[in-house]
């Protein structure tokens, strides 16, 4: 991937984009194909999925059998570079000593950010999800509704490629005919759960993931996405042709060298670079946004990590897409006489209303899945089925207002690196009996996970910690966290549901329930959104429905920061849809000379 050196970023740029993940990648794609000259600054190093992805590497080829270490917390082969829960050069702090009041912050420092290793689960928010307060009086509404965003969900799905099915379920939108890629066949455990889910009224259906089960239709889609623009069509068509279809092996979390799943580095950045309108500087750690006397953004200051020098670059507009926590941090660190409390923070809401997803899980062992004859279940490198929330009409009776979806893990996945036969089941087995028992139980364990909606609250926020700085002397974030009773009750319900499901499948629950601790700590599900919410006015929000800040009209936020709610649907598809829409709006504004 071609990049330039910091000292060569001297062109007359229209827009500076900070961050190269889902939001930054989408913004670069949208703007450069509209002819806008962009400079992308990425704090991490350059990263090339084609040459760096460990596709077929086995666990016996990795140190410690590929297991997690403090250096690689999701395992050796996971496509996270210079990141994890802790990064020595970029610490963060907690306001409380209590584990349940702390926030876990996962970051990656690499071209493409967390999109290189994300789970690729790509669910649309439904109409309810944009108007939660209207429905139940809690949390915050979005200033946009489903119909505003729908065209962009469709465009993103067409561009990145998402498999799934249209089931017409409540608040679980269909995509227009022909937009989704065909879903992969169900695995044994998924089909078994589907069958028994039915008796409990739980709809288990194909999940949506950003994986190409077929090659993209490069002859048709570019004209749909860029009608009348043959230049853009050619670039996008070429980029689509360069991506292969999934070959049904290798976990997606390692990244995909053939471009068969979505990562910014294989889907957004190549066509954006092909326009000739994008320069990328890696190892560019942005310190602050610089504003002029007119209160508009003039550019940014960044540290060139290669030389340690501070560098200033200018542009007509600035887009922040550094991930919601980092965007908050950059805004709070951008202090000036005009903006003494941080940029575009007149409302005092920058850093407020941070949300994650409500997570809990339960494992079971299913005798029906024991001793199955061997066959290949690798599939699409992630889950094939899930259950969308199915009890919208029963919120009152349930005692918690919002829903969760169920993700499930059931697969005869690549073994090794762990003990396949838990001691209690093995009953002391060693020798050939151990090997027989390991084979018997292999593939018979299933896990169910709750991924639920958290309602924003006043206790979950981030602020600057002026007593701690990162390796470049920049103040870091201090996190505050407290789950509310809603979320706890949701987890109680999820756990009972999973127990029922496991037992209906004839299985037994394996993991112990641990009461109030069953809820995962804040941040643990890595769906951090909020912190600079969108709304209808400058007093109660930081930006408008186009992710444009109220106070600085040429400053846009296109990661998760503008989310005023965090539906149970994993956030990234919505981040991309909002970014594309913000990009179209920015193009329109600049054509009208309004920036």
């Amino acid at each position: 991937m071609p990049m330039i050196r910091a000292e060569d970023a001297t062109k007359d740029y229209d827009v500076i984009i900070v961050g190269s993940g889902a939001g930054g990648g989408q913004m670069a794609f949208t703007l450069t194909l509209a002819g806008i000259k962009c400079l992308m600054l990425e704090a991490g190093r350059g990263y090339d999925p084609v040459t760096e992805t460990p596709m077929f590497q086995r666990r016996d080829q990795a140190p410690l059998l590929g297991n997690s270490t403090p250096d690689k917390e999701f395992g050796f082969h996971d496509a996270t570079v210079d990141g994890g829960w802790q990064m020595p050069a970029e610490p963060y702090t907690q306001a409380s000593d209590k584990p349940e009041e702390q926030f876990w912050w996962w970051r990656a420092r690499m071209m493409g950010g967390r999109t290189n290793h994300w789970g690729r689960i790509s669910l649309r928010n439904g109409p309810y999800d944009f108007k939660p307060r209207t429905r139940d009086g809690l949390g915050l509404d979005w200033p946009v509704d489903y119909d505003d965003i729908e065209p962009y969900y469709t465009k993103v799905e067409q561009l990145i490629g998402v498999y799934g099915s249209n089931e017409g379920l409540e608040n679980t939108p269909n995509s227009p005919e022909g937009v989704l890629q065909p879903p992969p066949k169900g695995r044994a455990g998924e089909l078994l759960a589907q069958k028994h889910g039915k008796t409990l009224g739980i709809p288990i259906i194909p999940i949506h993931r950003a994986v190409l089960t077929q090659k993209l239709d490069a002859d048709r889609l570019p004209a749909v996405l860029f009608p009348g623009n043959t230049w853009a069509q050619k670039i996008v068509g070429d980029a689509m042709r360069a991506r292969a279809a999934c070959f049904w092996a290798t976990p997606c979390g390692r990244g995909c060298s053939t471009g068969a799943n979505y990562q910014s580095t294989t889907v957004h950045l190549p066509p954006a670079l092909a326009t000739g309108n994008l320069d990328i500087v890696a190892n560019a750690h942005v310190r602050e946004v610089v504003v002029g006397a007119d209160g508009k953004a003039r550019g940014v200051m960044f540290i060139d990590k290669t030389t340690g020098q501070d560098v200033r670059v200018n542009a007509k507009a600035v887009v922040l897409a550094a991930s919601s926590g980092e965007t908050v941090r950059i805004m709070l660190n951008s202090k000036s006489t005009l903006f003494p409390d941080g940029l575009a923070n007149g409302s005092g809401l920058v850093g407020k209303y941070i949300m994650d997803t409500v997570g809990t899980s339960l494992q079971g062992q299913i005798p029906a899945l024991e001793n199955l004859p061997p066959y290949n279940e690798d599939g699409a490198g992630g889950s094939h089925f899930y259950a969308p929330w199915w009890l919208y009409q029963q919120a009152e009776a349930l005692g918690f207002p919002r829903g969760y979806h169920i993700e499930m893990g059931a697969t005869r996945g690549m073994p090794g690196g762990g003990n396949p036969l838990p001691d209690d089941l093995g009953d002391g087995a060693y020798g050939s009996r151990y090997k027989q028992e390991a084979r018997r139980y292999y593939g018979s364990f299933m896990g169910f996970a709750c991924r639920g909606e958290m309602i924003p609250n006043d206790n979950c926020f981030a602020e600057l910690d002026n007593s701690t700085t990162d390796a470049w002397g920049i103040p870091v974030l201090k996190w505050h966290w407290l789950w509310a009773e809603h979320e706890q009750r949701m987890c109680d319900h999820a756990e009972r549901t999973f127990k029922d499901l496991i037992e209906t499948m004839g299985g037994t629950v394996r993991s112990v329930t641990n009461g109030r601790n069953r809820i995962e700590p804040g941040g643990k599900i890595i769906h951090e959104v909020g912190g600079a919410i969108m709304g209808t006015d400058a007093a109660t929000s930081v930006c408008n429905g186009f992710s444009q800040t109220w106070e600085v009209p040429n400053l846009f936020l296109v990661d998760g920061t503008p989310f005023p709610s965090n539906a149970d649907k994993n956030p990234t598809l919505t981040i991309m849809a909002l970014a594309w829409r913000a990009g179209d709006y920015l193009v329109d504004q600049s054509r009208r000379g309004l920036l």
Partner: protein
Amino acid sequence: MSHNYQDQNQNQEPDAFGAVPIVVNQTPRLPRRTVIKWFVAVAASLQLGDAQVFGAEPGPGEPVITANGYGKDPLLNQTHNPGDLWPLTLSPAQRAAAIALADVILPADNLGPAASQLRCVDFLDEWVSAPYPAQLRDRELVLPGLDWLDVEAGRRFGDVFASLTLAQQQAICDDICFEPRAGENFKTAARFFSRFRSLAAAAYYATTAGWEAIGYVGNQPSLTYDGPPDEVLARLGVEQTVA
């Protein structure tokens, strides 16, 4: 304040939700005192002087782990063999005991080769020689455990564990293969055995021979994904619901 890596399980990838029942590096910490107590108990039961037993305790005699980890940006796309990233540290006696024990646990049979043919002890040595907290914790259990095996073999059969007959080795293993049933004097040894079995199996099933032994088929590209075969669907009483 930051998160304490050692005390929390953070291996679960949020959206790559798996169902692996047990992850190897989650053994509860065995405090050093316990290890020492263990050896005191062994010493008492063997009626040996402290000195003889404490010779086996990791400490002054054992190499201290000083190597660095592989950092946050290691080369992923290449093979790393045990010993490449940090030195292996098992003594020849410990290695011999480990190889013998791994083969008792994972012998050659109709399901596949013996652990020793699959380099399992190299992986184990890499594991207990690694500069990370979970592995350092295992080191405190595995090294004395291997030493204990030889002491116990000597006490019962007058030789080191590796030189015993299979039946003699099994006689020792039978006493320590399941912690809930292990006698008071064997509790800690049983914890060692459980951990060792875990690690040996973790290595065994990471190899292609191990895949075959457990029934894993995959890691090979294919033009289609066919899902479970009819035989499996029939056994489960389900239909394939995706066309």
